[in-house]
C-alpha cells in the first residue's frame, strides 16, 4: 500500500495489508513430531496453514499473525511459539 494523500487506494489494495507484521511470537513447526491431523489448519483464524507439497503442515508467514492458537491446540505439541527477532 502506498502512502497516497488522503489514504486513497485503487481497488484491491486491501490485499496489501499483510497481517504478518502484527506478529510478536512466531510458530515454529516440528515436522518430525507432527501426526498430520490437520487441527492447526482448522483452528488458524487467518486460514494461513496448509499442507505443503511435501505433505507437511506449515503456515504462510506473510499472514500468520502469531496468535498461538495452532500451538495451543496441536495434540502433538509439535508447534512452538518463539519470540521473533525483527
Amino acid at each position, binding site marked *: *500500500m502506498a*502512502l*497516497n*494523500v*488522503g*489514504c*486513497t*487506494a*485503487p*481497488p484491491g*489494495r*486491501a490485499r496489501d*495489508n*499483510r*497481517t504478518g*507484521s*502484527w506478529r510478536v511470537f512466531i510458530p515454529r513447526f516440528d515436522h518430525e513430531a507432527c501426526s498430520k491431523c490437520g487441527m492447526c489448519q482448522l483452528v488458524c483464524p487467518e486460514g494461513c496453514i496448509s499442507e505443503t507439497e511435501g505433505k507437511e503442515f506449515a503456515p504462510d508467514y506473510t499472514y500468520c499473525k502469531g496468535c498461538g492458537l495452532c500451538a495451543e491446540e496441536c495434540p502433538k505439541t509439535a508447534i512452538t511459539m518463539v519470540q521473533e527477532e525483527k
Partner: protein
Amino acid sequence: MALEIMEGSIAIAQAVRRCRPQVVSAYPITPQTHIVESLAEIVANGELAADYITVESEFSALSACVGAVATGARAYSATTSQGLALMFEVCFNMAGMRLPLVMTIANRALGAPLSIWNDQQDSIALRDAGWLQLYAEDNQEAVDLHYIGYRVAEDHRVLLPTMVCFDGFILSHTYEPVDMLSQEEVDAYLPPFVPKYRLDAANPVSMGMYATPDYYLEFRYENDQAQKRALEVVREAGREFGKLFGRDYSDLVESYRMEDAETAIVAMGSICGTTKDAIDEMRAEGKKVGLVRIRCFRPFPAEDLKAALANVSRIAVLDKNISLGAGGATPRGAVALELKDALYGTSTPVLDYIIALGGRDVRIEDIKNVVAACEAGDGDRFYGLRTEVL
C-alpha cells in the same frame, strides 16, 4: 470599497455565496442559525447554484460534505458547540482523508451546564482534529477569512478542512460595517476547486483506507506535515488578499502597540477588540502594554509568537476555554498551554486567565484588572469568579 452595515451572520452567508460552494449542508443551531437560514434563502432565490442538503443532525451535515468534497465539489457547512461535538468523528476523518472544506464556527460554550452563549471551548476542543483554525476579531475579518480559508484549504500543499471561528452573538448577531467584495473580486482571488483525487466511477478509488500499524504512523506524520506547510500557505494567501483588496492578513499573529511593551496580552477573537481599547487607555496613562492576537491557532504559529513576544517582561493570556484538569494545582486554557510550550526555555513569565466562559461579559475595566494582576504576578487563575455563589 463600499461599506455596508450588516449582521455578522448575514455577511458570512453573503461571503459564502461569493465562494460559490456547489454543496451546502448544515443543521441549524444557535447562534449559527442565521448563517444557514440566509444561505437557504440565497439558494432558494437562485442566487447560488448549490445543492442545499437538509439533514437530521450535524453528524449527517458534515458527512454529506465529506461525500460532496470527495466527488470534487466545493462544499460549505457551519455549526457551533454541541453541533460541532456531534461532528467529532467526521472531523477527524475529513482531515485524515485530506478533504478541504470551510466550516464556520459561531463559537459557543459546551454543555453541561447548557449554555448558548459565547466562549471558544467548542473549536478548541477539536484542536487536535487536523483542521486549520482561524479566529476572527471582527466581522470584516470573519468574512475575509472565508475567502482565505478556501484558498488555503484547497491548496494542494495543504488539502485540509478549515474552521473559520468567530464569536457567537458577540460577532454573529452584531451589525458592523463590512466591505463585501464583489463576485468578480472574489473570483479573481479564489479559483475553482481542483481536487487532487475524487470519486469517479471510471477510475475507482477507495478513500480513508484502513491502515495497519505498518502505515498509520506515517499517515499521521503526513497529516502533521500538511499542517506545517499550511503556516506558509496561510501567510501567502493573506498577503495576496492584501495586495488585491488592501486588507493584509499575512501575519498569523497580529501585534498591536507592541513597540516597547513590557506587558503583553495574548488572546484570540472578539475579546481583542475590547483589549485594544483598554490598551489605548492604558497607553494614554503611560502604561507600556500591548496585544499579540493569534489569528491562526492551527497550525500553531509558535515561531511568530516567540518573535512577537521576544522583548516583553510578562505575558497575560486570556483563555476563553479551559482544559479541565490541566496545569496541576492551577487552571489552564489551551492558548496558555501552547504558548508556554512555544516559549519553553525563555524566562518570560506567562500567566493564564480563564475568562469570559459561557458568555460572561468582559469590559475595558476587566482587561485593566488582568494587566494589574499580571504585573503583580497574580495569575494562572479564573478571572471574575463570583466567589459568593461558590
